[in-house]
């Protein structure tokens, strides 16, 4: 299988979490995955889908067209982009009249949605396209005795039919990536609970309560780290951890890392190249397990 993809890093990642983008590109390189950047992509449409559904869908379709023109499946690292682009792709492939509406807007700029590519989150590419075996063979160092909680995030699981997930209650791909690194993926209560990220700009308190509830469940599981695969979820659990703790009157000290950083370290990429300090102020909380 050719491991060549069109690539869209989204906006939250490059703008607020460049370390996630750096570590994603580094692990792709290490695993022989070629990521070809989309030219002049725009917002995936998710943030304003609910303000104007047609605008959201058309913006989303434009990004899909750019990947179609390259003749490549589209790889993303943001759950928001994965969800929005996948749902639009499915809808426009299915609904001819909707496709025509969208194409009427895109046509003057020389674009046309054809529906001949797929969208995939990098984490799924690792398990489904690279494969566990090759992934396992590429591991140079292992996390010994480390317990990790994984958080998938909603938009990469649901609607499961569009996102091609067998069972959104028991997904496996992120757990598998963590296990490959030698860390143990530990179960915890309500693993599927939403981070509340999309509510941050609408009602901060509700958003933080959701964040806090999840962190509280993870604290009970007594883990060494929480591993995420979405910039919104990461911001909820990492940057908003202290604020959420204050609100629900708890104390948390849970290191949160991007899955690409954990895997990158196991692939032998130096910690400073993975921008580990974007996640943890003291990288040693993770590095002490690496052997």
């Amino acid at each position: 299988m050719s491991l060549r993809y069109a690539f869209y890093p989204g906006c939250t990642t490059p703008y607020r979490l460049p370390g996630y983008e750096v570590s994603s590109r580094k692990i792709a390189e290490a695993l022989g995955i070629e990521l070809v950047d989309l030219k002049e992509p725009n917002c995936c449409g998710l943030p304003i889908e609910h303000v104007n559904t047609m605008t959201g869908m058309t913006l989303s379709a434009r990004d899909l067209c750019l990947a179609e023109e390259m003749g490549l499946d589209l790889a993303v690292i943001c759950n928001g982009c994965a969800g929005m682009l996948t749902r639009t792709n499915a809808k426009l492939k299915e609904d001819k009249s909707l496709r025509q509406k969208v194409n009427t807007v895109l046509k003057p700029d020389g674009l046309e949605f054809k529906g001949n590519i797929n969208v995939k989150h990098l984490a799924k590419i690792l398990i489904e396209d690279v494969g566990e075996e090759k992934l396992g063979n590429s591991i140079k160092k292992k996390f010994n005795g480390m317990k990790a909680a994984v958080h998938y995030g909603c938009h990469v699981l649901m609607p499961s039919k569009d996102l091609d997930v067998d069972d959104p209650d028991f997904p496996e791909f992120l757990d598998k990536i963590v296990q490959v690194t030698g860390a143990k993926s530990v179960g915890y209560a309500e693993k599927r609970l939403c981070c509340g990220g999309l509510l941050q700009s609408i009602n901060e308190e509700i958003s933080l309560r959701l964040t806090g509830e999840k962190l509280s469940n993870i604290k009970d599981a007594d883990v060494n780290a929480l591993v995420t695969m979405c910039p919104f979820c990461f911001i909820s659990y990492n940057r908003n951890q202290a604020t959420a703790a204050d609100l629900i009157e708890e104390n948390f000290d849970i290191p949160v890392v991007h899955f690409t950083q954990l895997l990158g370290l196991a692939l032998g990429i130096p910690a400073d190249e993975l921008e580990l300090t974007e996640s943890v102020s003291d990288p040693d909380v993770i590095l002490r397990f690496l052997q």
Partner: protein
Amino acid sequence: MNRPGKRGLNAETVSSVETGVVEYMTESASSLRRKKPLKVDPDFKNKILDSPGGETLRYCFQCGTCTATCPVIRAAGDTYMVRKLLKMAKLGLKEELLNSEVLWYCAVCHSCEERCPQGVKVAEVLGALRNLAAEEGNLPKGLKALASNIVKFGLSMEMSEDQEMWREVMGLPPLSKPNLKHVRRIVEETGLAKIVAEGEADEP
């Protein structure tokens, strides 16, 4: 003890359903401190059914699975109930819905859609309702700012020079910026530009 009656519902259940409806009407009335009766727009549901994403509202039979599976209700308390919003939509309580802050509390996690026995795409139906609210200028502040950024920059935020510099330091390639000519056409022809312009005109 409750025993099912001939139609599968006993008198007590039926009366509790009725009380529920009454409570729901009076509750929303009192919480809004209304002196006038609620206005019902019988055409409203058709408007939703015709909006992109609103089509599956027709299948909702009010089982409440959406509310049961909703994570937001735990954080927002009983101010937010998805089933109730869908019921209000079907009843035609347009003003109550479109002016309500609660309409924007859905975190769009899609859990309800995943579990709905009737295949209602709840987040999309709420999206259709939110579209209608946005058309009337009812938009949470945070989303106004996001929408305005997308119209201006084609992205949810603008990159500062510092950020561009950091990318270089980190060894990241320069970010390919959106084609603003294309974005402009999309936001103008699909309606977002109008919503943003009207929202900005309303600002003091």
